[in-house]
């Protein structure tokens, strides 16, 4: 698979401060890539370099095989984006806004406008002035302008800001659909981890300007087979069950937390203990395995943040 976006040792300094330090990663066609990091880590700076808002001090950014530094116009021809909030021309209608941006990409057929307007569900409001739009409608119009010219790479900076839950779901579905159907490569930055988890296939975590980790969702979800994990048992007779656990496990391992029995176990051990509980007439309502979350990864990767 050829990457649509490729960053090679990209660095950016503002004055003496290195904001982005030697960052390399790539985003493939059909992939939604999440770009994570605390505020001020260099997410937006990296993204702004990709879309041409900031100059690249060191390294190279290649979009669909074209170096941004060498041929700006050709490289950006395949990029759509929303950087921070989509600030549109509020004194113009939604359609006029789209036409303004459309014309900057060359000629776009009239049907394409209608198609994208329908896609973002703005058909009935598109000829109203943007200043009358809600934040959510503006976000949707922002998505429309980003996808209008059928780009190969979509860059979204904090796209869920200001969207209601339904709007977030719509956005997620739209992105997934375009990624799967058209092979659109999407780069999304956010600090909303739960959102990212639902949306992205792969993650890059950036801290203090440096990329610390790139993982797939699978990598994170599935630990190793015999990894010891935390299991929570919801039972009817808590004291009795605790006694059963104490018999088989090392003291200090089983604990009662929030009215549940909790212990660090392997998969096999958990199954065996469950059988023992059932045998001693204890009702087991549920067993939860605390899965390894993106949050854990995120915290682990950005250790500096833990101090705060």
């Amino acid at each position, binding site marked *: 698979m050829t990457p649509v976006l490729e960053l090679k040792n990209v660095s950016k300094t503002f004055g003496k401060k290195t904001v982005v330090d030697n960052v390399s990663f790539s985003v493939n066609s059909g992939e939604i890539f999440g770009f994570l990091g605390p505020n001020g880590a260099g997410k937006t700076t990296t993204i702004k370099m990709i879309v041409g808002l900031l100059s690249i001090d060191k390294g190279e950014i290649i979009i669909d095989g074209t170096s941004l530094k060498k041929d700006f116009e050709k490289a950006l021809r395949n990029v759509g984006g929303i950087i921070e909030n989509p600030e549109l021309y*509020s004194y113009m209608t939604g359609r006029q806004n789209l036409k303004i941006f459309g014309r900057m990409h060359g000629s776009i057929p009239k049907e394409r406008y209608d198609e994208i307007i329908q896609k973002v569900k703005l058909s009935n409001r598109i000829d109203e002035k943007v200043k009358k739009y809600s934040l959510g409608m503006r976000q949707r119009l922002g998505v429309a302008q980003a996808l209008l010219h059928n780009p190969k790479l979509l860059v979204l900076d904090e796209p869920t800001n200001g969207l209601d839950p339904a709007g977030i779901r719509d956005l997620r579905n739209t992105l997934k659909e375009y990624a799967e159907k058209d092979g659109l490569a999407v780069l999304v930055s956010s600090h909303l981890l739960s959102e990212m988890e639902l949306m992205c296939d792969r993650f890059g975590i950036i801290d203090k300007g440096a990329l610390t980790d790139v993982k797939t969702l699978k990598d994170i979800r599935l630990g190793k087979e015999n990894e010891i994990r935390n299991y929570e048992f919801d039972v009817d007779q808590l004291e009795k069950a605790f006694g059963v656990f104490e018999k088989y496990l090392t003291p200090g391992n089983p604990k009662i937390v929030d009215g549940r029995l909790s212990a660090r176990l392997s998969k096999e051990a958990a199954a065996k203990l469950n059988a023992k509980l059932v045998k001693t007439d204890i009702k087991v309502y549920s067993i939860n395995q605390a899965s390894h979350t993106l949050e854990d990864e995120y915290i682990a990767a950005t250790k500096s943040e833990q101090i705060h």
Partner: protein
Amino acid sequence: MKIFALTGNEFTKIFSKKSTYVIIIIALASCFLLPFMNYKSANISHDSYYTQNLNSEIEWTQNTLNVYSDINTRLDNIMDYCYQTASLQILNLKLNAGITSYDDWRETESYNLINKYIESYYISYIINDNKEYIEALEKSGSLSEYVNQEALSEYLSDGSLTKLRQRYDALQSEITAISNAILNNDPAYFNQYYLTQMNNDIAQINNSIAETNKLMAQTSNEEEKQIYSENITELNSQLQLLNELLVWKQYRADNNISRDAYDWRNICVNSIESAINFQYQLPYTKEQFDEYSQYDYALKDMTYEDYLIYFDNQKAEQRDIITLYTYHLDNNIPPAQYASSTRMQLQSIYYVITLTALVGIIIAAPIVSSEYNKGTIRLLLIRPVKRYKILLSKILAVLILLIILFALFTVIYILSNIALFGYEDYSYPMLSISEGNIVSKSILETILPVLLKSAISVFFIASMVIMFSTVTKSTVLAVAMPFMFLAFSGLMGSILIYLQYYTIAEYTIFAYMNLYDIINQTGTIGNMILNNPSLNLNVNIGFALHLGYGLLMLILSFIVFSKRDIKN
């Protein structure tokens, strides 16, 4: 190709704003209304001011005269007493004649009566043998200053009153006649009066020449002969001047030329008369020049040789005026600047340049800065378009719009003038002198090239707006700085010239802000050019400066716009 689409985008943005329409409509309306306002303000009556002033002057004079009701005070201040009495007569005359404006020609003519009144008072004291008054007058020493020399010397030598009586009667009838002419608003009387006076003056000079000739014939002293001969030359020159002026006095009388300050014929004849006078003036001698050049601002930086050339040039200019205005009078073509409406029109058409610049400031100021401030720049610069193209499209949109508006403003202004004054004024040709020949051009042929050349300042101002908008990202500064420049550069220019920093004035933009003032020699700067021969403001340099500085500011804008990181 893309640049056209981008420029179209900028037009869409400009014309999506309601404020754009408001500004353009206001500007168009003011173009249409300005001629009407000019017309109104030119014809506004200052009656109330004039009449108020007149009444308070009368009151003041009467108060002064009340002080003189005490005989001793009156005798101590006999000159002022006579002066105030005469003043009161004249003020009442003005009141009765219904003079309501300082522009009224009778205003000056009334004032000329004052010496005649004073002389008549003085003579009446002598004739009536008012001993106290005569004594007081003798003490003040003003008798000989006012009273006819011949009559006075006869009285002083043998106490004869004959000539004084004659003089008194003559004065009385003259005062009555002049007063009547003023009351009846009768310029013909004055035309005749000045013609007669001129004839009398000529007769007098002829007498003097004859007498001097006689004296010269009688003497055998070579030195005296030399002096007489010089006198005669001097007198002949005067005679020649008066004879030339007499032609125009005669012309006035024959053609019944009014004395109205706004009548172009009167203005032409006046200008010709003063130009004739100038032809007989001699340049300063070296000694005079050295003395006067210390005080005379215009002569300060000149050598005597420069001055002689300057003087000759002025003389030639005045000679051209005689030729030109004679032609105007002979062919009955009013000079455009004195024709009733075109005069106003000529002075004000350049207003469309300032207006275009103002509209330009308001429309162009947010064109870059608002993209930054509103954040739309982040959607604008992520397109497959090089940044210089985006700025270029903005500049093109502003310039194209301003060119269209400038043309529109000019056309509406001219049409409004025609609607107000009719086409007649426009049909008069404009006459000028080039290399001694009279050149005739239509009024538009004369105005439009000046107007178009001066319009380069709109480009300069627009470039300044775009520079401030781009570099400072502040719409307020992009409005304020060019606006201040537009408003105060003329003042800056005149201060530079006043402080005699001529070189700075000649190579900075300030003095050149209104190029039409330099071409037409109007306005403050135009007057300074007329009065400062050492100041050399060249229109073409001014044009080049506008263009050059404008381009420099645009280049700076391109560099900043292309290189700047969009951090927020």
